[in-house]
């Protein structure tokens, strides 16, 4: 009656596997958007936009959050549950700080008359970075679910799979941001 899965112990968990394919898919979406940006930037009348300096802070914050989630993964393997809980919460908080810095950067740009109507480069900037921020928000939600599950009294979770999956996603949005950041600096 059992599933025939001979070497299942060596296989990747299905959720993680699904996420890897989804990452491929998301990469294509951002590749589409950034190549559209390149195409447009080569056309006449293109006015580049300067990346707000607070986005350097964003970059540092999100790299830090990648480190904390990595430490959280180690903590759960070593069964240090208090440390694990703290690190996952820290990651989510760093994610929120990232979003706040993004929003600050956006409003700074908007005040400098870089609006949807005035600047195409700016419009791209808002859409691409905004879409990335939405994906970060999704990650934060997943992390909060992990934290809440830790406080559940009925069941105890010791499986490292959820945090590994969430971590994989988190590293993805981190690397995606670094790519976008460098991309905006170079192409602008």
């Amino acid at each position: 009656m059992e599933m025939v899965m001979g070497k299942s112990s060596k296989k990747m968990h299905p959720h993680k596997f699904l996420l890897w394919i989804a990452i491929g898919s998301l990469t294509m979406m951002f590749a589409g958007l950034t190549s559209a940006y390149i195409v447009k930037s080569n056309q006449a009348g293109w006015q580049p936009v300067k990346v707000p300096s607070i986005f350097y802070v964003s970059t540092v914050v999100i790299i830090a959050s990648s480190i904390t989630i990595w430490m959280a993964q180690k903590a759960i393997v070593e069964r240090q549950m208090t440390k694990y809980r703290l690190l996952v919460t820290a990651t989510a908080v760093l994610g929120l700080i990232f979003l706040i810095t993004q929003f600050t950067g956006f409003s700074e740009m908007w005040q400098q008359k870089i609006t949807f109507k005035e600047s195409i480069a700016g419009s791209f900037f808002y859409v691409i970075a905004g879409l990335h921020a939405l994906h970060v928000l999704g990650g934060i939600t997943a992390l909060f679910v992990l934290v809440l599950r830790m406080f559940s009294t009925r069941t105890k979770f010791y499986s490292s799979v959820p945090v590994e999956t969430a971590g994989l996603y988190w590293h993805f949005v981190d690397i995606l941001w670094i790519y976008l950041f460098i991309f905006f600096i170079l192409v602008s």
Partner: protein
Amino acid sequence: MSEVTHIHEHAVGVSHEAHHEGHHHADHGSFLSKYVFSQDHKIIAKQFLITGIFWAVIGGFFSVVFRLQIGFPDAKFPWLETLLGEWAKGGQLQPEAYYALVTIHGTVLVFFVLTAGLSGTFSNFLIPLQIGARDMASPFLNMLSYWFFFAAGIIMLSSLFVQTGPFSGGWTAYPPLSALGDASPGSKIGMDMWMISMALFIVSSLLGGLNYIATILNMRTKGMSMTRLPLTIWAFFFTAVLGVLSFPVLLSGVILLIFDRHFGTSFYLSDIFINGQALPNEGGSAILYQHLFWFLGHPEVYIILLPAMGMVSEILSVNSRKPIFGYMAMVGSMFAIAILAFLVWAHHMFVTGLNPFLGAFFVLLTLLIAVPSAIKVFNWLTTLWKGNIRFTPAMLFAIGFVSLFISGGLTGIFLGNSALDIQLHDTYFVIAHFHIVMGVASMFGMMAGIYHWYPKMFGRYLNNGLGYIHFWITMIGAYVIFWPMHYEGLAGMPRRYYKYDIWESFKQFGTLNQIISIAAIIVFLAQFLFLANFFYSIWKGRKVTSKNPWGANTLEWTTPINPGHGNWDGEIPEAHRWAYDYGKDGQEFISQTTPVGDNESKH
């Protein structure tokens, strides 16, 4: 089966829904959980199929209505007004309604019927059954995939009933028609609903595609190595990969479109005048949208075609009682098609001001697709060659697919040349080409699949006699409809026009257009024979009495006649050989579950 396979995976945490569903085969849930919110891949497949059929009837009916306009531009049909109201004032189809019908016909058939209806049905139905799995990697995501598709359908359907009508700027939704509400009546709320519907549809395809890939790579039964997979599964695999990588790019194009429509950005808009009023938008480019759209749009052609190719390969082999010719060449050519699909999109844009130097590369890459396509065609023909052919309705449709694929593919070589495309673009030649090679051919593949796997889906047979009538009317009709369009297109008759009466040069095609329209109506009506057959046979068809009615090798024919959720009663069978041992060593067929004997010749 060895005891090793009994080791439980709970310890490593791989248990999932499919696992414990396997323990109770007859689902005793309520009607709602069994037939509506089912997580059984077989029920979800049937949901996709029946929803797809619903949309095919709507899309087909629309084509009948606008063909009436093209064939009989001056006639009045009072019944049209009864049916369509304002759209056909005085019994004559209005221009806005004509464009709306053309647009929705395209959208619905490309996405809802030939993407969701085709891969949604058969990937769901056949992947677990043919690789030997109890269900999909994630049955829940699979169910969500269907319900997102359903919601997309509801919104598209509602857009037909809004006062300003559904979107009418062509299924490709090029800006500015799609970006400016003032551009046409259909560009108002109809376009918003079109976009929401398409966004939901993209989510549905992505969820489905992720699942198909994960299932094929992770959940194959013992012994089912990738090179033992039936070609159907390879085809579904490449289809899913194409979808997962290309739909997000369409989504990014749609996101930019939403910003242009509602938030005043100028990604696609520049220097536009509406009623003499200049719009403030500066610096955008409509070509950008075309790039993003066709980066999906071209792979989409193969998303539609590959599943049909896979099923046809399987059906031709089973019913010729011969192994498929050149199995690895078939896999290799599908791989080549999947790669090339991403590298040819600009051949849809030869006349948009694309750099001719760049165009030359796209010509080359486009014509390269002829190579894997020809490999596949020759392999199908050599599979048929000297076969002991059983002309079941499924087999006829499969052979019809090969015929259509050749006829339609050859005109692709014309269109792939950027120089010839100057004359042929946006004419009826293009209409004829893509309808034959992609539309009708894939529809034939789908029909072949339905006739062939119907006994597995419903435990009953379709009526053969009706099947033959259905096939011959559709086959002859398809050529009568689309063959003459090549001549019209070569003469330069443009597509999408409401009327041709101001051109002296197209008057000669008046009768031809009438013949095409009459053929289209006959073919449309013939589909009701199939529909009657389909729904009657679900309850009243001849019962299947043996597990393996076609004498096929693949695993789905080792399940009970009416498999429950979990597919196999006992253990999942093990695969010992590839799927195409027909007529080997004097045996008519050898199932994949039969171990290789000592004195068996090599395959």
